[in-house]
């Protein structure tokens, strides 16, 4: 089996339009969901009543300790027949990946919030700022800034795990590469291109996150 440049050039356009579009949609959709829902979960973990805290804690632990594949499977194949909800494959994938990562992101936010010095809360009370305003003006901006690198890492994580959506028939860059390969059993070019694509995105992103980390530390 030798590398065929002609074939690589032939499949690249399709791989990086149709496939890339799905990967981008899955990654960004799931990230937005994870970052928003994660914040909601983090705040729920600090709710005054444990009737909120406890169920949220259980949900987070449950999702974090089971494989994403199992969750996707349940969402796509079990829930529709059980509850009569049907969503498209990509939407289901975005929800599954987003909720899964929301549980990790909640912990990230929680650490960031805990890291804001007590004196900041006290100054906010001394100025009589309303509760909601304390969160939006004082605590969250500081907490989120502290955890930007960790959020960046989660974004990269979502990107790298997005091919798992293949289980529920979502065809992303990697899935498309496999399809193209299976047409004539010449997998080398499509899979190599797909692998390279993930490398080319993930490595610079990791470097950027590392840089951001260093800048925020100083």
């Amino acid at each position, binding site marked *: 089996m030798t590398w065929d440049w002609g074939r690589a050039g032939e499949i690249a356009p399709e791989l990086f339009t149709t496939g890339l579009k799905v990967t981008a949609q899955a990654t960004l959709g799931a990230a937005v969901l994870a970052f928003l829902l994660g914040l909601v979960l983090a705040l729920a973990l600090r709710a005054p009543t444990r009737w909120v805290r406890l169920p949220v804690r259980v949900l987070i632990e449950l999702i974090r300790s089971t494989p994403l594949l199992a969750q996707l499977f349940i969402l796509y194949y079990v829930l529709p027949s059980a509850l009569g909800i049907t969503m498209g494959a990509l939407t289901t994938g975005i929800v599954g990946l987003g909720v899964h990562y929301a549980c990790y992101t909640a912990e990230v936010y929680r650490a960031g919030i805990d890291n804001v010095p007590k004196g900041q809360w006290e100054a906010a009370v001394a100025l*009589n700022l309303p509760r909601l305003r304390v969160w939006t003006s004082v605590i969250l901006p500081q907490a989120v800034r502290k955890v930007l690198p960790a959020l960046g890492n989660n974004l990269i994580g979502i990107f790298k795990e997005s091919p798992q959506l293949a289980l529920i028939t979502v065809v992303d860059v990697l899935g498309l590469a496999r399809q193209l390969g299976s047409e004539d059993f010449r997998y080398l070019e499509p899979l190599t291109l797909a692998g390279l694509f993930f490398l080319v995105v993930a490595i610079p992103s990791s470097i950027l996150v590392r840089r951001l980390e260093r800048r925020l530390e100083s």
Partner: protein
Amino acid sequence: MKADPKADPTAEPQYMIRFDKVGKRYGDHQVLRDLDFTVRPRERCTLIGPSGSGKTTILRLLMTLERVTSGTIEVDGELLSHMRRGDRLVPADEKHLRRVRRKVGMVFQQFNLFPNMNVLRNITEAPVRVLGRSREEAEQRAMELLEMVGLSGKADAHPGRLSGGQQQRVAIARALAMEPEILLLDEVTSALDPELVAGVQSLLRDIASEGNLTILCVTHEMNFARDISDRVLMFDHGQIVEEGPPEKIFSDPVEQRTRDFLQAVLQT
């Protein structure tokens, strides 16, 4: 003896601050026990005493950062720690606290400026969000205050770029922007490099000498205490050991514990 503001709205309450049998306990450590004391409107009081004697706790109770475990606190003739429900006293809820807390401002040892806002925003955030000032109005007032604390040029700077002394000046301006009746100062120069202490102290001397604020100050700087206070209260183990005008307390203390404390402080 309590002034009733409803009887005559122009009458000034006799006390700006009143502690009535206040107790404060952390776990099984009783920090304050049956503490009674009062501060008149526009009076400037300094609390001195050994570390751990409960001075910070008193200020934090007034700022509602802590809750009393027994007794009551009144501010400007109004209950701060409690509120009336029918003829019973119940612990104050957040709404009540927010209303009475308006009258109190505090400057902290560690400044506690908001690092995510520039200097101007630090000063204007609360007047805009709490007092409902327009942004222009709040900024104009903030610039006046910055001028007063000698930092007109730093409105756009971020707190992290300022020296400790400058940060504390901004914190003072931020507290004053809320137009409190009572200003609480908790060892506000203790975290400063020695060469920056004098500047902040002289600013506070000016503010105190204007005479329109009730000031409760905790400090280990006895000269500063002498300059700014009408009355000095010596604390030990959550109790007032001795009180009086600064000349009296510093030159001719009656209690042995006061003498020992002053000697220890003046030696360092």
